């Protein structure tokens, strides 16, 4: 499988939202190098506490406190240093602080659910948050999204840009979720599932999950499964 065959297709009818939004015409391929230019530079400073979603209000949010950490790498395994990682998520009850979220679960006055950080010299990111809840959506009868955290990354190149979702190990909703199932192969789906990380847990304080992210490099970069 090449890079593109491992990605979800634009049209995946089980995810109803794709039906009127997926382009129907083929994407136009550009010759090599036309998308090899640097990634955007994020135009704002990142505050020091932006990585800690549990300390953005007067009190602490309700929920299971967790540390989410991992490394951001390019496809050659090189760490991406000083690159911005943005996250957003539902609260522990499965509700987003978004006026369009109509799920009748409580908002948490101490949880906004958004964070940003920069990777360190080893490409490592670290967020402190609470474990998000599952929530219903109207895609099909009794549809529920598995618990997930949304991630947005730029990497080093324009073509490195990635928006994706991190899931939690053992979640029984994952095999039923058309958004996760849109990824064609099982190995690809598993790459979105974090693993419990006992070494990063903090006794008497927080559990931890680890999730590494691999971004596209320059188009000229050879990939290991290409001849």
């Amino acid at each position: 499988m090449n890079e593109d065959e491992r990605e979800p297709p634009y049209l995946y009818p089980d995810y109803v939202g794709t039906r009127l939004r997926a382009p129907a015409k083929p994407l136009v391929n550009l010759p090599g190098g036309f998308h090899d230019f640097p990634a955007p530079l994020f135009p704002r400073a990142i505050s020091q506490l932006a990585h800690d979603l549990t300390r953005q209000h007067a009190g602490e949010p309700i929920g299971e406190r967790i540390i989410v950490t991992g490394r951001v790498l390019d496809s050659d395994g090189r760490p991406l240093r000083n690159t911005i990682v943005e996250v957003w998520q539902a609260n522990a009850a499965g509700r987003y602080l978004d006026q369009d979220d109509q799920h009748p679960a409580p908002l948490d006055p101490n949880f906004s659910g958004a964070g940003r950080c920069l990777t360190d010299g080893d490409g490592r990111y670290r967020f402190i948050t609470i474990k998000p809840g599952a929530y219903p959506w109207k895609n099909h009868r009794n549809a529920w999204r598995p618990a997930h955290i949304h991630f947005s990354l730029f990497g080093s190149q324009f073509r490195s840009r990635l928006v994706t979702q991190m899931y939690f190990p053992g979640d029984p909703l994952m095999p039923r979720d058309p958004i996760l199932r849109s990824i064609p192969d099982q190995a690809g789906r598993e790459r979105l599932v974090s693993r419990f990380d006992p070494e990063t847990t903090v006794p008497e304080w927080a559990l931890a999950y680890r999730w590494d992210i691999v971004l596209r490099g320059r188009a000229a970069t050879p990939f290991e499964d290409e001849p």
Partner: protein
Amino acid sequence: MSGPLTPSQTVGPFFGVGLPFERGEQTVPPGSAGAIRLEGQVLDGNGEPVPDALLEIWQPDAGFGRTRTDTEGAFGFTTVKRGPVPAPDGRTQAPHLNVTVFARGLLRHLVTRMYFPDETDANAADPVLNLVEAARRETLIAKNCSGVLHFDIRLQGERETVFFAI
């Protein structure tokens, strides 16, 4: 080796809590020298507005902008127009903005380009526009409406915007 790439997933409908930032639609302050206004609408395959799309614009020497569509699917940016861009094959590309589209229902983001209506000659010689079948090129060229550039993004359908493989 770090192994294969991390796959994409949709931005979903609730990115509003995390991704937009204050004055993100301005890569330069409104009214500053050379500032231009760009407005448009994101539409689905039925021609209905897409009220939950996130757009990013990027010119490597002119800054990064990010904004979301409103309930009418409308968006706007204040930015600047830069000059021609060298192409990797030694030719010259007409001035353009790189435009990235995220939305609920897009399992991967889409990449397109906005070219300028007052660059007829440069557009005619542009190596990327020339890869696109002639009848679809107009989807990539903004229209000048009383000094405001107008650029709609049609995700699907008869006048579907040209999107580029990433």
